[in-house]
C-alpha cells in the first residue's frame, strides 16, 4: 500500500472512526451529568425564551455596540479566518467531489485561482492569529498546549493543501498524500482539543441565551 492509498484508505477510515467516537464521547460525558431542574418561575413563556436562545445563537456572531470598540479587530480576525477555512473546505471543487462521494450530492465551487487567493489570505490570517495569541497578555495567559497544537494541525492542512495545489516541493501524489494525512491528523486530534468548539458553539449560545431570556435578562 502506497502513502496515498493509506492516507485516503485505512488512514482516513481510522481517523474518521476516532473522530466520530471521540466527538460522541466528549458530548456524552457531560450530557450524562445531572441536569438541575429550575424551580424559579420564568418571566417569559417557553416559546419566548426559546426564541431568545435562537436570537442569541445568531446575535453573538456580531459584538454588541457597547463592546465593539474593544473587541472589533480581534473578532474580525477570528471570524475572517473561519470564513476563509469554510470557503476553502467547502467551495474548492476537488473537496466538493470528495465530500460528494461521501454524502451523495455536490454543489457549485469557486475557481481554483480564487480558492488559492483565499487560501493565502487565510494562511496570513492564521499567522496573525498566532501572533496575537503570543503577544496579547490575556490570550497568552489563557493559552495551553491545546491552543497551539489545534492551531498547528489546522494550519498544516492549509499549508499542505496549498503545496499540493501549487505542486511545490515533491511529486503531486506525495503532496496529496501528505495533505490527506494532515486531514487525518486533524480528524484524530479534533475530539481531544478545542476544535470541538465547532460542535459546541451553536448549542452553547442557544442554551445560555434561552436561560438568560427565561429571566428576561440581557443576552
Amino acid at each position, binding site marked *: 500500500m502506497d502513502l496515498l492509498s493509506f492516507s485516503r484508505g485505512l488512514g482516513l477510515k481510522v481517523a474518521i472512526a476516532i473522530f466520530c467516537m471521540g466527538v460522541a464521547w466528549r458530548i456524552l460525558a457531560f450530557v450524562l451529568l445531572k441536569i438541575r431542574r*429550575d424551580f424559579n418561575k420564568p418571566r417569559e413563556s417557553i416559546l419566548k425564551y426559546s426564541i431568545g436562545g435562537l436570537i442569541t445563537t445568531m446575535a453573538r*456572531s456580531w459584538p454588541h455596540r457597547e463592546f465593539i470598540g474593544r473587541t472589533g479587530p480581534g473578532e474580525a480576525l477570528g471570524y475572517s479566518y473561519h470564513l476563509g477555512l469554510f470557503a476553502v473546505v467547502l467551495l474548492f471543487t476537488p473537496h466538493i467531489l470528495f465530500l460528494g462521494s461521501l454524502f451523495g450530492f455536490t454543489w457549485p465551487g469557486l475557481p481554483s485561482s480564487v480558492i488559492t487567493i483565499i487560501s493565502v489570505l487565510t494562511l496570513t490570517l492564521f499567522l496573525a492569529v498566532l501572533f496575537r495569541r503570543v503577544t496579547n497578555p490575556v490570550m497568552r495567559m*489563557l493559552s495551553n498546549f491545546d491552543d497551539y497544537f489545534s492551531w498547528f494541525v489546522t494550519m498544516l492542512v492549509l499549508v499542505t493543501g496549498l503545496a499540493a495545489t501549487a505542486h511545490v516541493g515533491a511529486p503531486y501524489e506525495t503532496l496529496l498524500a501528505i495533505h490527506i494525512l494532515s486531514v487525518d491528523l486533524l480528524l484524530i486530534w479534533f475530539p481531544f482539543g478545542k476544535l470541538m468548539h465547532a460542535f459546541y458553539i451553536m448549542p*452553547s449560545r442557544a442554551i445560555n441565551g434561552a436561560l438568560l431570556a427565561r429571566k428576561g*435578562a440581557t443576552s
Partner: protein
Amino acid sequence: MNDVLVPALTPAARVAGAMKGFAQEIGALSAFRMESCIHCGICAEACHYYIATEDPQYTPIWKIEPFKQAYKREASALAPLYRLFGFKREVTADQLTQWQHLLFDSCNMCGRCSLICPMGIDVAELIEQSRHAMFEAGLAPKELYDKAAHQQLTGQPEASAEPYRDQLLAIGLKFDVPVPMDQPDVDIMLCVPRTDIEHYPTAVAALARVMQYLRCSCTFRSDGLVAENYGYYAGGKDWQRDISLRLIDQAIECHAKILLIPECGHAYTALRWEAADLYGRALPFKVLSVTEFLGEELKAGRLKLGPSTLGTATFQDPCELRRKGGVNEAPRALMKAMKVDLRELENHGGFSFCCGGGGGVLDIEQAKPLRYRTVEVKLREIDATGAQTLMTSCSDCRRTFDDAQAHFSWDKRPQSLLELVADNLLGSNRSDSGATP
C-alpha cells in the same frame, strides 16, 4: 456581634473542601460551559477590573481556572488522559488561596462578561459556583463569612444596638408614616436592606409611604426583615438557603401573595432567581422588586406621579436587577412619568458597568484599593453625561457611590428612585408641598 471565625483548615482539607464544593455544583450545564471555552480572552474586555487595570489576571474566565482545571482533570471526558500525560495538575491549597482575590475581591458577579463571550458562556454563573467551592475550602473573605454566619444564626448580618424591628418602627414615627409590622394576613410581605436601616432610613420611609399611598395590604415581619443574603455573597449555599427560608417561611405564614424586594439588587437575585431551587420547589408567592412593582402599578393607573424638580439625571442600572434579573422597563417608565430629564450613560441598561460594590466587594476591606480603581471607570462615565443627579434603585450601588463620593470628593450624591417616587406621589401632601423627609 458574636465572634465568628473563618475555619482554619489544613491545606489538604482546603483542597478537599473546594473539590467537594465544586463537585456538588458540576452538572451538565456547568460542564458544558467549561468545555466550551476557546481561550479567546474576549471576556476581559467586558470586565471593569480588567479595563481599569489592564491586568490579565482579572480576565473573568481566568477567575475560575482552578475549577476548570479540576473539572478537566477529574470529571471531564478526557480526565484519564489529562492525568496520564500530566496536562492538568492537581489544584493546590496555595493556588486556591491565591484565587481568593480573583473570585471575591475582584469580581462583582455583575454578569457583564456573560454578554460578550462568543461561545455564549455564562461566566458569571461559573464564578458564583466557584465561590461555593471557595466557601467549602474555608476561603470566603472574613467580612462576608462573618456576616453570613451571623445572619444565618440570627437573621441579621450584624448585631445592632436596637433590634431592626424597633429601628423600623422608630423610622415610621420619625417620618410620620405607618410601618405595618407582623400583620397576620396580607397581600404583600415587605423586607428591607439593613443598608437602608443603617444608612438610608429615608428609603425605608419612602417604601412605607408608597405602600400607604397604594393602600396595599402589607406587612414587615419581625422574623424575616432583612433582604440581603450574605450566604449568597460568601458562597455558603446552605446558609444562603437558611437565610432565604426565613423570608419564605414568613411570607407563607402571613399568606402573602407577593414578597416585595426593596431596592437591593442581590437580594432580588437570591430570592427571585435562586430561592426556589434551594427551597426545592416553586415558591407559593410571587417575588417582585419594588421597582418592577411600582412599574406595574404605574401601568395599571393606580400609581400617579407628578413631575419631579430633579433637573437632569442619569441612572445606574443595578446589574442584578437589569442585566441579570430582567427588570427592564420599569425604572425608565417611572422616571418618564416624573418627567425626569434623563441623560443615559454611555454603557446603560443591560450593558451598564457595575458600581464596583456588588457581589459583597463593598464589604471586603482588602478589596478597597482595587475597588476605587474600578469605580473611577463608572464615575468618568457619569460625569460625561453632564447630569446633575445620579439615580439608582439599589442600596448597595448607592452606598458604593456614597463611599466613592467621600473618597474622591466627588460632586454627586446618589439618589434613590424609590425615594423620588415617594416624593412625587400625585395627590399626596408630599407631592403637593415638594417636601423631603
